[in-house]
């Protein structure tokens, strides 16, 4: 997975194509994470999937986390995987206590279909436009 400097370079590249979509980065326990604007999460996921040289085409896991008492309280985690480089990258979208809602990423990652339903029932967000 990207190391600390590699993560910052990645953020810089995303900023060129999707300015302001990445709000922050986090690198701890040798795990890299991009904290993104929830309204633009699909832009970032699409960029990471389709941009040549990135290739995060596999969504391993999608789950919600409750960070009570922090605000924004909720987050949706996307655990992406580049299978060619054996690299993992987490994309994290923070959501407020009131009206936690985020766009469905089923169009980008069909595997999200079942997984998006799980967080919506267990703890945090509801995914808009998850197919019935």
């Amino acid at each position, binding site marked *: 997975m990207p190391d600390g400097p590699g993560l910052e370079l990645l953020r810089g590249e995303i900023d060129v194509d999707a300015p302001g979509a990445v709000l922050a980065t986090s690198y701890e326990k040798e795990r890299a994470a991009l904290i993104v604007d929830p309204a633009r999460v699909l832009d970032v996921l699409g960029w990471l999937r389709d941009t040549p040289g990135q290739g995060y085409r596999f969504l*391993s896991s999608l789950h919600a986390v409750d960070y009570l008492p922090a605000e924004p309280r909720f987050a949706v985690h996307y655990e992406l995987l580049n299978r060619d480089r054996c690299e993992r990258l987490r994309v994290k979208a923070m959501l407020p206590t009131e009206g936690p809602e985020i766009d469905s990423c089923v169009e980008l990652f069909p595997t999200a279909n079942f997984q998006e339903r799980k967080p919506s029932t267990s703890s945090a967000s509801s995914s808009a436009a998850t197919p019935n």
Partner: protein
Amino acid sequence: MADQRTFPQSLVDEDPALPTVADLYGELDSDRTTEVMTVNIGPHHPATHGVLRLVVDLEGEVVRDLKPVIGYVHTGIEKSCEDKSYWKVIPFVERMDYVSYFFQMEAYCGAVERLIGMEIPPRAKYLRTIMLELNRIHSHLVWLGTTALDLGAISMLWYCFRERDRILDLFEMATGQRMHTRYFQVGGVIEDIPLGWEEKCRSFVHDMPIRVGQYEALLDRNEVFLQRTKGVGIVSRERLLDLGVTGPLLRAAGEPWDLRKAFDYLAYPEMDFKIPVGTVGDNYDRYRVRVAEMVESTKIIGQALEALPGGPFISDDRKYVLPPRSELSTSMESLIHHFKLVTEGFRVDPGEIYYAIEGPRGELGCFVLADGSSKPARVHFRDPSFVNLQSFKDMAMDSYVADMICSLGMLDPILGGVDR
């Protein structure tokens, strides 16, 4: 009168010309009046391999639509984990996918160890690897026995459960329990293997490839089994990847993806083993891949037994690991550590981690969020059965309802893991 159809000498090399759906029912067209019947299969049905309900639209015997309905064994385990100290979570998580309990323990304990930055002793790594591979064989044996039973090969169940029982004997000897052993601990394993265990395990390693050969002798020339599996339930590699499918299902479609090779964990980097892959991605390939995996797992166990290092089987970091019983009567410090660990548990600094391993059904991931207390703030499992179930519709659409049952068996879902 005898069946006039002629079968080729070797069905392994050549497929018989099976009648297609169109042969039997004719081409469907808009003018034809057809009746679609919706049938509920399950949730309580032996062929659903657990408490799974299938809402199936049938046109005659042909599946035209399918919807899996899950949640009948939802236990709220992930939520319950938030109310338990870290070490008390272990027995909870191993009850999710109740057939591969060692894998659940490894995913959880490995995640916590990475959160606290703990390196486990080499002997613990090897012991865990051995137990995981025994558990993989155990899981595949349960799958093979029950799936062959679905297809009418009743004897397979008894043969598979005979070898499974030997594995459970090994688990019982090492851990005191046949299932849900609670053997893995944060920092290593709870006890060293007893005297005589290695010898008994070596005997199993010697016998198992012979047994696998016997399974193959029973099934590989069984015309019913071959006709029911070859060319049935094909899903392309690309589609499986889109759906997030991992494990033997993906490898059967020709994708050599295995986390044991891709990532460095436990003793796998030191092991020499192959990743069996299929070519077509049908139910027959799924069977072949799992059977070959049993042989590879046996090889791993043999190598790990040969190279099993000496030394401690659990970390000696007293902040996280219980002191040995013998120290309690001689060391006040140990007594305090013991009291603190048993009553409150250990604390983990704030942080979060996702740790994934190769389970018998694919990528088994565990996410743990620590908030600095002695209880995890969030535990989430990425269960491969849950994700893989999405591919079932692709496998079963436009096939006979009987083939749908075969495909479900080959999918090998464990509903305890799906529902959690």
